[in-house]
């Protein structure tokens, strides 16, 4: 597509991988710092920390809502266009929660409510972590089996890893917490992000022809692939934001970030590593 001026065959590998590697390093430092200070790399939402989320459409102001729920541990009031509000309360005991639901019912009978207890949140958290680990390990195995060469496989796995790490760091910066929805998005990213990596690696390793041409061909196809996915996800984001569908909005926001990060990782990090591997292995060091 014409408005994109990244001439993939022009840059030497070291230049290509520089930016992604720096970003990956910064993100890792950032996430480690978070883990040290808060115990978790990302801020857990109510699904994992416990709490109550309330979805409501009301023209009431944020202050009005805060005042109405004065006796309850209201953590935040998220506002979107279309009068949608998303309130988050801290963990409550059963009696308080009953009182809260009665209070909500009184003024906002059409509000949706989600409550997760602390123990259940802990269970979900450990399961989510397990799911992430298993997914990642499973993906790595598939990649290694498919390509049966060490360095290209490592390049794919590294770029998927980097997708998740950098996306998680961005989530922190933007204040997006880790919920069931965002965990799903991170998992989906594992699946999505390797699509273009696999296209790239297959084309470069298994085809005959000039490296630069193959790289350009893969790039053309890969960019259009990610663009279509981005478009679908962007549509999902816009509609779910307007419609106040929290779980879909969470999923799409993280996917949007992740896919953009993936464009960088695939076409700079992964391509750079592959290019270096292919030129070095043929003895053609420039």
């Amino acid at each position, binding site marked *: 597509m014409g408005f994109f001026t990244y001439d993939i065959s022009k840059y030497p590998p070291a230049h290509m991988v520089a930016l992604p590697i720096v970003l990956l390093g910064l993100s890792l430092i950032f996430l480690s710092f978070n883990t040290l200070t808060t115990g978790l790399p990302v801020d857990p939402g109510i699904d994992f920390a416990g709490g109550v989320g309330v*979805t409501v459409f009301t023209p009431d102001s944020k202050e009005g809502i805060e005042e109405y729920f004065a006796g309850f541990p209201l953590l935040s009031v998220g506002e979107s266009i279309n009068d949608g509000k998303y309130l988050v309360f801290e963990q409550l005991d*059963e009696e308080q*929660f*009953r009182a809260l*639901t*009665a209070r909500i019912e009184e003024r906002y*009978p*059409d*509000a*949706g*409510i*989600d*409550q997760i*207890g602390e*123990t*259940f949140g802990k269970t*979900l958290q450990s*399961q*989510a972590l*397990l*799911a992430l680990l298993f*997914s*990642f390990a*499973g*993906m790595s195995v*598939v*990649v290694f089996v*498919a390509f049966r060469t060490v360095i290209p496989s490592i390049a794919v796995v590294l770029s998927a890893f980097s997708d998740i790490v950098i996306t998680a760091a961005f989530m922190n910066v933007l204040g997006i917490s880790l919920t*069931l*929805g965002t965990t*799903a998005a991170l*998992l*989906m990213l594992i*699946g*999505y992000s390797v*699509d273009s990596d*696999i*296209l790239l690696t*297959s084309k470069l390793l298994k085809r005959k022809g000039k490296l630069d041409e193959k790289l350009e*061909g893969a790039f053309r*196809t890969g960019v*259009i*692939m*990610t663009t*279509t*996915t981005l*478009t*679908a*996800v*962007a*549509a*999902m984001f816009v509609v*779910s934001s*307007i*419609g106040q*569908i929290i*779980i*879909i909005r969470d*999923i*799409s926001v993280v996917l949007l970030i992740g896919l953009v990060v993936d464009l960088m990782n695939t076409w700079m990090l992964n391509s750079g590593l592959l290019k270096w591997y292919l030129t070095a292995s043929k003895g053609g060091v420039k």
Partner: protein
Amino acid sequence: MSNSTLRAVFSDWRVVLMTILVAFSLISIYFVPLSFNQGVTGNLQLGLDLEGGAWIQLGFNSEVVRFDTDRDASSFAADLGGRLDAEVLLVDEDRLEIRKYYTQEELEAAFEEAGGTVVAYERGVSESTADDIKRILEDKINSLGTRDAKVNTLSGMSGVTKYIRIELAGADIATAQDVVGQQGKFEIRIQTSGNATEHVLFGDAITSVSTPSREPGSNLWGVGFTLNDEGAQAFRNAALTYGAVDNPEAHELVMLLDDNIVYSAPLSPNLAGDLRVSTVRSLSASTGVGDEGLKEAKNLEIHLRAGALPVDVFIAGSGYVPAALGEHFKTMSILAGIIALLAVGVVVYYRYREPLIVLPMIGTNIAEIVILLGIARFIQQLDLAAIAGIIAVLGTGIDQLVIITDEVLYEGGIPSPNLYQKRFLRALGIIVVAASTTVIAMLPLALMDLSSLRGFAIVTILGVLIGVFITRPAYGKVIMALLSR
């Protein structure tokens, strides 16, 4: 489109299969059974967040412990029960269910004192207890008159049930909370003459209820229960006053739950004799022989507990979506799907500018979604997360169609059939690898019980499989036939 092109398109089995599956899906969503009154979603099973309703998930203040001891297992269990002041049941030879909440450390200490060790500790209940709890809850839900309820137990891989989830379509959150909170009113009355009865005692006089057991040496099932002192006194007085000890058959004891008779039987001769002498605190109500007797006994146990659960529960999570909000989510989801599809259409048109490519592409994508929905109708409830999965499938679907298109039309030209076949297989190779990673990445979620994400994972996996095996290869055939016209 000429006849020969049509024939070429439909000569491929995948194209034929895709067409059949689309038809089958549409039929199963809208026609079998007929569902025009249900709007666009037809026969699809919708989750609570789209349909409206309340859910509540309960955890247990109890744990299942795998243990090791040199002592006899049942006496070890009894000993432990005394030490912990809790009901301790032997689940099988080396597992105990402790019906009170203790941390692993506390239990380890108690086990050691009793001469055993804790091998594995898991919070939850055994499967049979979970089934009991499930039945009690279903009973209560029925009595609340809720029309569409589901009670599911969620078990780990070890077979220990960790949670129980109740979904009440169309109910509000207060109703869901009542299912757990409220207890029924249990009463024992005694037959005076004819149909007339007199009050003997209420459920609060019952201090404990045991699980169904057989009378030693017989096949007769029954449920034991214990009365407190006042209850035992009231029971004896009633039996003496109304002459039940002398003529048991004419003065049956009647048990009622919320004023409905749940059990009725005369005093046994033995019990009548004992009551003549003193009060009796330990009673047993026999229910009959064989499987039927056991079933009755289980029901009676529930009734004696007056809907109280054998294990203390806590609310792990709950939620509520009002019908109007569910309807709004539904509209928005459909809108999101349509807009995503249109937007993707615009992007691929911008790239290829050839309706003969873009239309089959979008068509294939729609077919994929329709087949996915048609299959999901039978196996998976669609909730909001599952819808995100569908839109994700739409995204990957287009991705892979782009791979096929670019691969087949490499360097712009339309290849000869041989070359086409070679390139097509190459494209399929890439797609299969890419799809395997997505399936593998989603598999843990589909197998685990991360509540709302299971549907998402299942839908995504299903969509990817349909795409890789049927629709995307079919697309390859279609564009080839169309372009080489």
